[in-house]
């Protein structure tokens, strides 16, 4: 039987990597929006809770559409990452005694382990602030209070900050790589140079981190 075009696309290393880049870009767009929305935390409880109400009640259908898209993206992204990693491992069964990386960045080399950290972080984060299952004193509709109380536990705040460090590394490589994987990056004299990805990798995790930091340092209680 003829295999379908889509199946052949997924089965090729280039096709699979393109799926990874496309889903990665969806996730990049999401984290930018999510971070910007979170900054309303610093406008006080009324504003932040109203934002939460908007997403959880007023436009809940749109929120569900987004959730399904993100879930599908993460699932495809991670399956592709896993399968390509296995292919790459198998491609060099006997390794060098000595190989010196010349230009690869720390970010590129931590994509896999950083990805595993994010994969642990994402379900924890949902059970923490969305469902409240893993939250010590969750009150539905009280997003502001939930965040403040949530980050008063030191290890929780540190776990979030760790995730943001890996997110920064993941974005520094990923937000640059995805455009090249998808073939939409323009030819450059210095293809390894990345300004946009650097900006995203600094601004997004820094913006997210302001919330746990402000609670940990006692600016907000």
């Amino acid at each position, binding site marked *: 039987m*003829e295999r379908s*075009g889509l199946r*052949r*696309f997924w*089965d*090729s*290393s*280039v*096709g*699979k*990597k*393109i799926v990874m880049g496309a889903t990665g870009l969806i996730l990049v767009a999401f984290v930018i929006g999510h971070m910007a929305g979170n900054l309303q935390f610093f406008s006080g409880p009324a504003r932040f809770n109203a934002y939460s109400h908007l997403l959880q009640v007023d436009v809940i259908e749109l929120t569900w559409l987004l959730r399904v898209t993100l879930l599908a993206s993460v699932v495809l992204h991670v399956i592709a990452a896993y399968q*390509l990693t296995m*292919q*790459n491992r*198998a*491609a*060099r*069964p*006997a*390794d*060098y*005694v*000595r*190989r*010196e*990386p*010349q*230009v*690869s*960045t720390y970010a*590129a*080399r931590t*994509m896999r382990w950083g990805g595993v950290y994010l994969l642990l972080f994402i379900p924890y984060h949902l059970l923490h602030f969305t469902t409240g299952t893993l939250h010590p004193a969750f009150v539905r509709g009280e997003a502001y209070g939930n965040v403040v109380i949530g980050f008063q536990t030191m290890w929780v705040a540190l776990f979030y900050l760790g995730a943001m460090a890996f997110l920064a590394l993941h974005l520094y*490589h990923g937000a*640059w*790589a995805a*455009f*090249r*994987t*998808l*073939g*939409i*990056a323009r*030819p*450059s004299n210095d*293809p*390894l140079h990345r300004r946009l990805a650097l900006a995203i990798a600094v601004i997004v995790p820094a913006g997210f981190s302001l919330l746990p930091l402000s609670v940990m340092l006692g600016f907000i209680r």
Partner: protein
Amino acid sequence: MKVVLHVWRQAGPSAAGSLVDYEANDISPEMSFLEMLDVVNERLIVRGEVPIAFDHDCREGICGSCGMMINGAAHGPMKLTTACQLHMRSFKDGDEIWIEPWRAKAFPVIKDLVVDRGAFDRIIQAGGFVSAPTGSAQDGNAIPIAKQAADEAMDAAACIGCGACVAACPNASASLFTAAKITHLGDLPQGQPERMRRALAMVHQMDIETFGSCTLFGECQEACPKGISIDTIARMNWDYLFAAATERQGAEVGGTG
């Protein structure tokens, strides 16, 4: 000058190999790296030992035969330089030098530093032919080619197929090689009729040969003695995506070589 070599010695494809130490005394800094190995080999032969096997042909950086990992870098420490064009003046007296064959499942070791790069030939073969008319040479300016396209095609065509990109890649991916071949034909008007078929077939063959996939570490571009850019990989992926999206059964043009 004197250097200490740690050379991968392996008697045959299925023999177990290991690093063997050799002291190379009285080496001139003006010798090329391969001449230094020649000197070491002559002394081995005099002592009745088996000389170190390595690939070489032109020794002027154009054929792509030579290639070895030197101190953990493909073709050694000089940028844009094949192993045969590397000179001992790049090393210091008393240096230790590690020499290993290219490592990839798709490049099995034949002996010592010699690997079988037939996988590259099969990727090129999968690209098939270009249906440009042969016969008497055409007028040079009969086919207008944009300067940008001509430059990019020429840059990609500089690939000598040495395999340094695979060797340097942490994933043992042949993406830079395959992308260079796809780009140098895909950029030119003569390459257009089979462009989509070629991208699909060459990427497919690259996977069949058990190479790894690209994660854009950038090591290949750094190792390439001809300075092929990872821009070609973006180009390959674009052609592949476009070809897969527009692919129709039975609509194939051209054939395999």
